[in-house]
């Protein structure tokens, strides 16, 4: 009898473990969060940038529109990093901060006419085509949502960070979960539609 109980226990534990492993993806959101390195909804790794750019100052305190600097987002698939002369356009005129080390670094790059080697924080696999233009056009221009909300869907609250960190999973399921939701077609209407469900829309 004792032997049988022992055997039963062994089998039971194998069964419990394997079904727990199988069931994990069923948990709402669990599967998506499991993509990030340090758990669900945690920040992605800290990426060291050549200049520790304070988004919190620019977007947070100053309240500058994201697209003032990231100008390409509304007209290209790629949002891109601001061009150096954009930074200089303002900072040439702001005498008060010119002696700060970060600004000095900026001027060094400008004088050398060298692009700043910013690192990618939100880097999708190469076979994925995420189109900034389409999302900005739909949610910012047509639906007239606040820019921090529109960008924040995927980038989180950048205005509270210095250099950007990834806060969303950016996994396929995470994308699809939003594409399946009904979104207003434009600010004035109650008509809704959802994102495309066609592989070739995002995969190339």
């Amino acid at each position, binding site marked *: 009898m004792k032997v049988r109980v022992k055997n039963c226990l062994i089998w039971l534990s194998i069964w419990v473990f394997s079904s727990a492993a199988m069931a994990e993806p069923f948990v709402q959101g669990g599967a998506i969060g499991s993509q990030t390195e340090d758990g669900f909804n945690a920040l992605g790794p800290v990426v060291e940038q050549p200049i520790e750019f304070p988004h919190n100052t620019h977007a947070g305190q100053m309240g500058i529109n994201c697209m003032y600097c990231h100008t390409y987002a509304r007209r290209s698939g790629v949002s891109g990093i601001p061009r150096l002369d954009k930074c200089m356009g303002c900072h040439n005129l702001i005498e008060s901060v010119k002696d700060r080390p970060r600004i000095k670094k900026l001027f060094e790059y400008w004088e050398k006419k060298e692009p700043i080697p910013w690192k990618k924080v939100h880097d999708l696999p190469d076979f994925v085509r995420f*189109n900034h*233009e389409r999302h900005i*056009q739909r949610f910012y221009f047509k639906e007239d949502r606040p820019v921090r909300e529109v960008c924040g869907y995927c980038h989180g609250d950048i205005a509270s960070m210095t250099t950007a960190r990834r806060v969303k999973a950016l996994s396929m399921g995470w994308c699809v979960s939003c594409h399946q939701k009904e979104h207003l077609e434009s600010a004035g209407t109650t008509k809704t539609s959802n994102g495309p469900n066609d*592989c070739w829309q995002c*995969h190339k």
Partner: protein
Amino acid sequence: MSLSNLIKNWSSLRVKRPYEDQYKDKDYKWAMVIDLDACTGCNACTTACYAENNLPVVGREAFSKGQAMHWIRIERYWGEGEEMKGRFPDRGAQFLPMLCQQCESAPCEVVCPVGATHHTPDGLNSQVYNRCIGSRYCSANCPYKVRYFNWWQYPERAWPNPLELQLNPDVTVRSKGVMEKCTFCVQRLTEAKGRARTEGRRVADGEVVTACAQACPTSAITFGNLADDKSQVARTWERQQIKLASDRQEKDENLRGYRILEDLRTYPSIVYMERVRDSEA
């Protein structure tokens, strides 16, 4: 797709054959017309395709093993039947540009175990490289044999530095073990559709064409939106009395349009125009 969604949309997973003019209600149904009387067999289209779609040059050895990667190939026939008539091909050669026919009821789509090839809303037969596991069932089931498999790790051997600088960033470079095929230059279509959508309109006729159609020196290839009545492609289909959802066209005898292996009920999106020969000459 979540489990509940899967059940909800179960019927959408079933493959349907096209019926009547259903495609006309949609915004887009991409289609093509290839005029075989204009095609000279010059291979400009094939090279344009290599340039646009990051096709690897496989080299002599792989080519000799039938591992060539030309999404569009020019076939050259010497006769219609099983034997050549006469001593010389005195009516010239018969050239046929063969590419993916973007079938409306594609044999490849049904059999792909992972759904890497499926039908897009605008009537394309898509191939998603990162989903493909390389079972090659689609190729085995394709009547036209226009699917090409990455038998080797081409990214490592086909573009020695600095040739890789030529690669089109809009098209994935395929690794070994995935299937690929003509996409009707979907990267161009997506871009044009996005632009049109931002401007709140439909893509205009001629605004976007495939690389092969763009290059063709004799304009033998016409590409366009079949759902747009005024497009050249739609008008040609109409004039040639070709119906997308028919497997046997009832048309006038003097019309040149036809589709290849139509009786297999693949409902191809490419209409060929018969070659013309002056029988008095």
